[in-house]
């Protein structure tokens, strides 16, 4: 199987200038690879740096050191040093991301929030909306909500909009930050099935799942994040 994502020796720390420049080391020497058609799960307790790793892979956090090599349409690109324009291109075509919380935009209807990544990749608006509606329906979001902006939705409803938005495209890599955290059992099952389909399509998935049932159902292997704990902190 191809390996579309290789992470080597990545480190992340935060320097808090408003707190007398305290330096908070988060992870060090993060090294792993992701294969097409597998779902790897980042494991470890809260605060171990799981979310930070996902955010670095999406270009949302800067990296202090190391390389994040991604296969971007046949070209290898280091996300740790890529320009903003390159990161945006990778997000459009190569790496999808389901964040923990939906960042809502005023006045944009749920169905358009979901359709947007497809439209950004050049799909026709009507066709993208149809796909979006199908996904929302599969995730049991009541149809009367589709035309409304998600700002006033419940946590679980927003989460489902977010999942639909992340799953609508055919990105070869998909990052999932606790996509099932606020879902009920029925919708968790739907997401588990959707992840299985992505795997079957050859997508490489990397996720954080606190829910042990979901983790067991989807994980091909666990990447133990405690192995990347900064030495200074452990000492």
């Amino acid at each position, binding site marked *: 199987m191809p390996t579309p994502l290789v992470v080597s020796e990545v480190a992340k720390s935060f*320097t808090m*200038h408003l707190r007398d420049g305290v330096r908070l080391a988060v992870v060090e020497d993060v090294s792993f690879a992701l294969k097409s058609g597998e779902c790897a799960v980042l494991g470890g307790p809260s605060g171990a740096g799981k979310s930070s790793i996902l*955010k670095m892979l999406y270009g949302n956090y*800067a990296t202090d050191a190391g390389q994040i090599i991604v296969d971007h349409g046949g070209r290898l690109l280091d996300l740790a040093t890529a320009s*903003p324009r390159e990161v945006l291109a990778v997000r459009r075509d190569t790496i999808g991301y389901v964040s923990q919380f939906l960042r809502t935009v005023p*006045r944009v209807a749920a169905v358009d929030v979901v359709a947007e990544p497809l439209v950004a990749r050049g799909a026709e608006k009507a066709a993208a909306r149809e796909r979006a509606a199908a996904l929302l329906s599969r995730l049991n979001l009541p149809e009367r909500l589709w035309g409304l902006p998600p700002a006033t939705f419940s946590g679980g409803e927003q989460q489902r909009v977010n999942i639909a938005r992340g799953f609508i495209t055919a990105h070869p890599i998909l990052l999932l930050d606790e996509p099932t955290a606020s879902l009920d059992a029925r919708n968790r099952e739907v997401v588990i099935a959707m992840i299985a389909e992505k795997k079957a399509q050859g997508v490489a998935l990397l996720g954080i799942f606190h829910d042990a049932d979901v983790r067991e159902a989807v994980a091909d292997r666990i990447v133990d994040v405690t192995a990347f704990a900064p030495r200074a902190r452990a000492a």
Partner: protein
Amino acid sequence: MSEDLPLLRVFSLSKSYGSRIGCADVTFDLWPGEVLAVVGESGSGKTTLLNCLSTRLMPTSGAASYRMRDGAFRELYRMSEAERRFLMRTDWGFVHQNPADGLRMAVSAGANVGERLMAIGDRHYGRIRATAIDWLGRVEIGEDRIDDEPRAFSGGMRQRLQIARNLVTGPRLVFMDEPTGGLDVSVQARLLDLLRGLVADLGLAAIVVTHDLAVARLLSQRMMVMKDGRVIETGLTDRVLDDPREPYTQLLVSSILQV
């Protein structure tokens, strides 16, 4: 293929007022369809930079070149006044914070929009009016208001009219100076949503000066943070806001009020 070339290249641009620095040593490229937010507090030099880029102000040193519709780069500060004015009227837009600065308050809404079309040579009254009505509709101003003067409009409507006036000529680059400043929050949200949609649909490049980080987050892909006339941090908008590196950027981000 032209997508791989920047629309605007800015190199080491500086503007000083005597010994006082307006902006200093600003370098960046802007690509077609890209929205760049310039943030910082008042006095940080962001408006001076915007005025230099839009050639409303001459820089003290540095260079900026713009890729014209024929594909050739032209040095902005070496153009004649007439050439610059032509660019301003056709290929560029400038949205002022105060709509009164960008509109003619004593002529009708329709004329405000139509005037830009006439400036590029359209003389057909019926066509101009039809285009004006279409553009008023796109900024959510009813056709029945076409003969009203902007003086009779609310602040939000005036701002939407100013946007229509700027976009009617199909510009490729729009400069915006605090486009939502001074508007009520609900009016702001509507305007932001409208701007987002128009920028995406038309594939516009834009440089948006704002002190409001939420506006920057919503509108821009890329961000420059300015302090004391200099660019102190730059990057993807969500990266700068979620993982700010510089002390001043951290201060700005931590000062956002949570609701």
